[in-house]
């Protein structure tokens, strides 16, 4: 599995563990509900731990634990759902989160430029063949009118 991270195409090791599945070794992400429920166990997990937010989740719910969370995935059930854009902005600007923020799910490579501007630095695309296009869109614009996170 390959993704874009910090403007490079790299191999990826993370996997998402759904709420009803057993935790497994290695780098895993879980839902905020799972994180809150199994926090003690997860803090001693053999591997890195991340949290996957859906658009309907609130960033505030994991705000206090951000130091312990090494990856935040922002999942897109549909590309038109723009809430993740504000979630990323809040994580970077309001909560000063410095770890990896990764977009996952159903979004377009054409959204990667805006996603990067609100602070997302890793992209797991629906179709790996879109990786080169997505990478190239990061240089679509050399100027911008507003401050965001960059």
């Amino acid at each position, binding site marked *: 599995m390959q993704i874009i991270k910090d403007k490079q195409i790299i191999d990826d090791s993370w996997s998402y563990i759904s709420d009803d599945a057993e935790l497994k070794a290695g780098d895993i992400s879980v839902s905020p509900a799972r994180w809150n429920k199994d926090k003690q166990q997860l803090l001693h997990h053999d591997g890195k731990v991340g949290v996957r937010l859906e*658009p309907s989740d609130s960033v505030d719910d994991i705000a206090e634990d951000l130091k312990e969370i090494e990856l935040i995935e922002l999942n897109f059930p549909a*590309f*038109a*759902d*723009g*809430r993740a*854009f*504000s979630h990323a*902005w809040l994580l970077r600007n*309001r909560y000063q989160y410095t770890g990896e923020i990764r977009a996952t799910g159903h979004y*377009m490579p*054409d*959204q990667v*430029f*805006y*996603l990067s*501007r*609100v602070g997302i630095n890793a992209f797991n695309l629906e179709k790996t063949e879109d990786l080169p*296009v997505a990478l190239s*869109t990061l240089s*679509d*614009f*050399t*100027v*911008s*009118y*507003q*401050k*965001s996170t960059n």
Partner: protein
Amino acid sequence: MYQYNEDDQTLIEERVAQFRRQTERFLKGEISDDQFRALRLMNGVYIQTHSPMLRIAGPYGLLSSKQFRKLAHIAREYDKGYCHFTTRQNIQFNWPQLERIPDILEELASVQMHAIQTSGNCLRNTTSDHLAGVCTDELEDPRPYCEIIRQWTTLHPEFAYLPRKFKIAVSGAKLDRAATQFHDIGLHLVKNDAGEIGFQVLVGGGLGRTPIIGQVIRPYLEKKHLLSYLEAILRIYNLYGRRDNKYKARIKILVKETGLEKFTQLVEKEWQLIKDKLELSAERIEAIKTQFTPPAYDSNAAEDTSFAQHQQENQAFATWVKHNTLHHKVPGYRITFLSLKAPDSPPGDMTDTQLDAVADLADQYSFGLIRSTHRQNLVFADVRQVELFSLWQKLDALKLATPNIGTVTDIICCPGLDFCSLANAGSIGIAKEINEALDDMDYIHDIGDVKINMSGCMNGCAHQSVGHIGILGVDKKGVEWYQLTLGGSSENEAAIGERLGPAVAKDQVAKVVTTILDVYVKQRLDDESFLDMVKRVGITPFKEEVYADN
């Protein structure tokens, strides 16, 4: 007028290149219809009944003669020789080919124009008072703030995938000519008790299928906080606006369902956290203001006497002056309307020849600038009175001098069934029938200020719910019917029109309109306007007459 700097130019050129690549990928089958839809809409491209439609931004309605010549060129080379001015001060082309749209956009970029965010669920073109800077009732020119907002909204990364479209209007005058109470955000320049000018902020207004009048969320906002406050509102909307039902997705529904008080608290809380980091500096405001300084007016303009004389000698000219020109804040100048409502042409349409000719006239008579209005007409803002007679003759030859501004034949009309795939009913044809039924100019002038707004479906592109007379096309088992409303207004005393009664058949609409006007003429008091009379007597007298036969 705002002139692009290097960065502005780079940005729109990069946008064209981006859309060219996206269109190529779509045509090769690498982007799905659904995904391309979102991308093309944010570049103004709709797919319509016959062909794509391209909507170009007219930033707060201000255009130059050079830009008009470019529109003429595009109409000739890429379309069928005409274009359409919309109620949001934009320009639409009805017949471009998708493959050639990137080329059109490139042509536009060469004259500092674009189609960015003219449709789609994003921050749209900011609109304003078409008399900004020249009217006599203005506190401050709103256009510098419109430009600041234009820049802020353009390619805003966080707010490109909102629950629904989002429209902002700004006004600086006593009379609200920008329908700010019917925008997602309306901004009014106002003075506080200390005599400083800032903004009154309204939120949650809108038309469409659920017309709602905007409410004041902040009575006074310092100018330096303009962008942070907008950002706070947009962030709350982006996070909490409904996404489950597109008819409930506008901010007006969020405000209504949350309650204004709670909604205000959410916004104010967000704003407190960002306001100090996003201040608009006084220098920045001043720098933008210098791009909107008044032109070099002739201080002797008022000394001319020929203007009065021509009016005495030529009744047609005098009538035109009375209806199609307005007082200017500088003595000796008149604000001049170009009517795009000639009886035999679709409201708001212009041919390539007219566009080129208007560009030349603008250069000759009005400092090379043209404005488009909310009621689908054009304005030359700064015409010396001494030149009005010769301008009138030229406009008349171009069929742009119908003396009907603000009258019953100055109809706002959407494209309806002729072009629009969402339409239930035709509208252009009905506008023509109304024109034919009202072919007596003296009668039209006697009736005075009556605003007819007509849309071909519930989406309400022509603001029918705020028309003094609103006409809405509805579909009844595949047949076109029309629902009428009376008493709407988008000005200061904003009101949503009341339903007259059951929908009427297509061949009855013009007759119903003339019946309504006859009732008005018979029952009005002295110089009572149509709207005032409707307010006084309600709809009953009209209803009785219109439905008398049933």
